């Protein structure tokens, strides 16, 4: 299995100011890396999930995600926004954006890795470290250490 995230999939200076734009810019990184085959299908799947209930949670986190036919392997793209983007959480805009894609027919072992990623997001220490990360490589190392225990 390839890595959950690579430095190409990290944007520490997300310029977008709106949910859809921010998601699209991160999704384009996934497409460029060959992890998303059809950008429009992927975007529609993310929007469908977001429409059920916005995925923002308190503490400045947005977690757009979907299971999609257009995703080839479990993958994560990470964006950091200095000004913040409204993601539907009650306590204000999101500064840390995690775009998670899962293959539509993904087996349980694929999903387990995403499940352990989701569990890490709860921990304030993980969030804090991501806020402070100096470069994309640091983010990748952090995710590997926290999620995969490597």
């Amino acid at each position, binding site marked *: 299995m390839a890595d959950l995230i690579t430095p190409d999939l990290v944007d520490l200076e997300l310029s977008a100011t709106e949910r859809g734009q921010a998601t699209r810019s991160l999704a384009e990184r996934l497409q460029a890396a060959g992890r998303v085959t059809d950008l429009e299908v992927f975007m529609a799947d993310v929007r469908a*999930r977001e429409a*059920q*209930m916005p*995925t923002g*949670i*308190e503490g400045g986190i947005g*977690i757009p*995600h*979907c*299971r999609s036919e257009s995703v080839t392997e479990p993958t994560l793209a990470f964006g950091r926004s200095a000004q913040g983007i409204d993601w539907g*959480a*009650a306590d204000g805009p999101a500064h840390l954006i995690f775009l*998670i894609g*899962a293959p539509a027919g*993904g087996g*349980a072992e694929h*999903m*387990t890795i*995403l*499940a*352990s990623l*989701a*569990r*890490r*997001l*709860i*921990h304030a220490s993980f969030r804090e470290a991501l806020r402070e990360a100096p470069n994309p490589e640091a983010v990748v190392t952090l995710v590997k250490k926290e999620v995969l225990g490597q």
Partner: protein
Amino acid sequence: MKIVAVTSCPTGIAHTYMAAEALEQAAKAAGHDIQVETQGAAGAEAIPAEAIAAADAVVFAADVEVRDRERFAGKPLVQTSVKRAINDAPGLIGEAEAAARSGVATPTADAAAPAGGAGPAPATKVDQQAHLGTRLRQWLMTGVSYMIPFVAAGGILIALAFLLGGPEVANKVNGGTFAGVEYPPVEDLSDLLVQAGYAGLMFKIGAVAFSMLVPILAGFIAYAMGDRPALVAGIVAGLLANEIGAGFLGGLAGGLLAGATVMAIKRIKVPRGVAGVMPVVVIPLVSTLVVGALMLVVIGQPIAALQSGLTDWLDGLSGSNAILLGIILGLMMAFDMGGPVNKVAYAFGIGALASGNLKVMAAVMAAGMTPPLGLALATVVRKNLFTKAERQAGEAAWLLGASFITEGAIPFAAGDPLRVIPSLMVGSALTGALVMGFGNTSRAPHGGIWVVGLIGKPVLYIIAILIGTVVTAASVVVLKSAGRGEVETETAATRAATATS
């Protein structure tokens, strides 16, 4: 404190696990044990039934329907959205503590969200259809598990009243003739103690507990299907089943109808503003009206017609072959245990008694005793065919059967009608035929074994009842063994449902 929780969200890859982690952290921080079942895409590892049974409180943090939620029935419950668990897990754990302390299911502000907002995920729906048979049994067993204490408390009080005050205590309270003596009914309850004594007091209390048997059965079948909003329609359906004389089969139908109606209403998408009042006002109001009207109009009329038809038919049969009459009365007594068909047979026995034919009454009473006795025997000889709740009901069934309280068999029949009812009918038909063949007589309209002094040829009478009891038990064991596979799943559900009772 021990907590069990289920987390579930529409996609099942992110919030389900975040909520689980948040709950685990918060519970740990507060010094509690917690087990979380994540119903997400990585596959749900079901919480063991023992852990559920041992839990002090249940937390549902779910935006889609919790799968197999019947497992958690009867536990103090805190239900909320998955996001609430992520954003405020410590607060939620605090609510779980409060729920465990008060011992009742506490709604939270978000409780309406799963009911009125996002519907069940398509995958869950398919699952539901595939296991409809299993789910049906779980619904029925939930109703049964809540009903059993009413059967036990009410039935044993009535039996004790017979024992302490003599079987005529029923007539001292309700009026009527017993062994040739006419008793006036108690008109004013404040005269109860003077007119009927302490035994009369016990009989009255037992009778009131018994009158709740069908409403509780119907109510909690509906509750298992549609949650709290369905309880009122189910209980009202059960009360109406009492009023129209539809018996426990009418209550069973009414409970299922109420649950199905609520499940159907929940599927309707409503605007956000209305969603909040759906579970509290709209669903109870609409479902109760619909189900109540169906019970009165669609079920009530045919039952009245059926009863008068059966009565005419029995009248035509009297004077023909006595053994055939015994078989028919036995079949009728065991068919619905206090329902419309049973009542016709019993009324026929009372009518015969009043006109001086004491044989019919003897057959009716014996055939009404074997269903609980046979089931009690079956729970002893084949423990593993019955749930824990059923085995407990079996202990009370000895006394109820011996006292001619046929309703003692209802918990078994309501949980598995297609196998249990035919078995009871076989045993009762045989008993009815034997009593008619032996030429037994009874001068008492009720009382069971406690009026053996009023029975003609008592030894043969007891032999007839013993044979019927053994045949009933054997039939139940044979039919239940044929459907062995399903009992396993039901056992887990019932263990959870009855853990608090």
